[in-house]
């Protein structure tokens, strides 16, 4: 398949996923949630006349297909509606909170990459050893620890007991404030990255070129660093990219525990007061970021490795 066709297909898929999400949200928002948007915005005490006017203004008195069209048209112009609670446009609220989340997610991604690669190098080729058993157990333990529990334990140890690290807030983007939340967020994912890095490295170690490198006199480590790593990175990078999107969304609980003023914590407050446009808006934005990143990585990967776009390697 030529590269242009591959890119076109992936972009089409991206559009389909976003359109699908948006359509499901439209159905949920307009058909299943009791009471309409006008009622929710004006409250129970609104006069029938005011309700009527607002419904007309929002297009709620039109037929369903027209409403759907209007909704898509507004989305196309980044108009995600107005927050019931804050009385501001949803897109401006999201833009206010997005940088803090991106900052936290970026830091966590860096951390899990470093820790995961170290984990992979340490355990690759050591199946069925005592180290293997130990790392499997501790890895499962980390994967099973809920982020909020880990976060609160870290807060207690490093904040309440030792008093050496700040436990809440953004601290004006001071990196010290980043240490605990980023560690909390990265811990479980580092294990997943590590497991992936390990099996990917092991796959390369079994290849003939690796044996050839050893035969030319390279030590196991030299062959691994000089030859194996580069070939092993593909799946790891794909995983990391998928993960960046997941981090953007999954940061919610970490943000709540650490009072981090990001989009996740904002969505949490929106959910508490059932500010539907704000919830839907954040979900649309997060899903869009997530699928865009994974599509870009797929395209990049397909560009670098022709076997991917030929479908010779599934899923990578």
């Amino acid at each position, binding site marked *: 398949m030529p590269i242009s066709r591959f890119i076109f297909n992936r972009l089409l*898929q991206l559009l389909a*996923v976003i359109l699908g999400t948006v359509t499901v*949200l439209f159905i*949920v928002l307009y058909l*299943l949630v009791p009471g309409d948007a006008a009622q929710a915005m004006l409250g129970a005490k609104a006069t029938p006349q005011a309700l009527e006017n607002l419904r007309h203004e929002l297009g709620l008195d039109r037929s369903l297909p027209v409403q759907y069209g209007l909704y898509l048209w507004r989305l196309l112009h980044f108009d995600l509606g107005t927050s019931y609670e804050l009385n501001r446009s949803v897109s401006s609220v999201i833009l206010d909170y997005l940088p803090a989340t991106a900052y936290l997610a970026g830091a966590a991604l860096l951390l899990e990459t470093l820790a995961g690669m170290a984990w992979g190098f340490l355990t690759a*080729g*050591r*199946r*069925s050893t005592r180290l*293997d*058993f130990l790392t*499997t157990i501790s890895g*499962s*333990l980390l*994967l*099973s*620890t*809920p*982020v*909020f*529990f880990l976060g*609160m*334990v870290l*807060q*207690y140890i490093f904040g*309440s007991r030792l008093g050496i690290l700040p436990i809440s807030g953004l601290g004006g983007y001071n990196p010290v404030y980043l240490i605990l939340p980023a560690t909390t967020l990265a811990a479980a*994912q580092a294990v*997943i990255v590590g*497991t*992936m890095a390990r099996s990917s490295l092991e796959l390369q*170690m*079994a290849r003939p070129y*690796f*044996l050839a490198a*050893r035969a030319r006199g390279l*030590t*196991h480590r030299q062959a691994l660093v000089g030859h194996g790593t580069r070939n092993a990175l593909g799946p790891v990078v*794909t995983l990391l990219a*998928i*993960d960046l*999107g*997941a981090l953007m*969304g*999954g940061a*919610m*609980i970490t943000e*709540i525990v650490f009072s981090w003023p990001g989009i996740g914590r904002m*969505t949490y407050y929106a*959910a508490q007061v*059932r500010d*539907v446009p704000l*919830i*839907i808006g954040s*979900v649309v934005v*997060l*899903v869009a970021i*997530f*699928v865009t990143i*994974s599509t870009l990585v797929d395209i990049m990967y397909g560009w670098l490795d022709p076997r991917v776009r030929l479908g010779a390697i599934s*899923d990578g």
Partner: protein
Amino acid sequence: MDNLGTIPAPLPASPRGPAFFSGIRRQANENRLVAVGAAIALAIIIMAALVPLLPLADPLKPDYEVGLSAPSAAHLLGTDLHGRDQLSRVLWASRTSLTVGITASLVALIIGLVMGGAAGYGGRVADAAAMRIADAFLSFPVILGAIAFMAVFGPGIRNVFMAIAFFGWPVFARVFRSSVLSVREQSYVSASKGVGGGSFYIFRRHVLPNSVQPLIAYAAMSVAGAILIESGLSFINLGIQRPYPSWGLMLGEAMGQIDQAPWLLIAPGAAITITTMAFFLMGTGLSRKTDPRIQGRAHS
């Protein structure tokens, strides 16, 4: 240092060489994981079943005289802000978590069987349709979908089930589909076709029993993931509602009191971790798959 011994032996292993023994050792390691996980999970399930028979304090009754008291003989794990016994609440909450985790996974499994079966056995159109839907669901994190679901439909245990099953089935569908695809090419399927077996008969008699096995590992993983999601949702007040005990909810209530009452963290936190890990070990041991999309699912 010479590390030659660490190069994995190329497949297939000769039945008597060193690879044979390392194969056995590896099998034993993985069986050990499954055994440890299954034993812990079974112990937790039995304990949860016996909770009503145990001489425990009422998990819902407040007693403000003893609010936030440290662990003692009267309250082995201390009490929360409302003076409720922590031990009793943690034990009662195990019923909530296990019920949600197992039931939601079962529902997801059944939807996955239907969709994956249709995709793998129902022809090209059904395959394309079912897999595109599954891909759309797989294209964003479960926890995000679950949070949106709960935020829109409101909290409560029934919606927790629905949210987890609604976003959990695509993994089962994918695994079952690929399993069905390989089984339907087997010679016994052609043989059955040859002697005139009907398409549904063959599916029920041959394809289904031979394709469900890989799903068992994912079912165990899915229970672990569902327990984590339930506790996460309850932690942010979108899951199980007060005053009913749930581990996530208990940790959420403890959030403001870490300084005065750190014991409130330990029991529910350890309970979630141990229960999740038990099911997780079973799943990992049963299947060491590394499909990143599926591996990450339990957690993202």
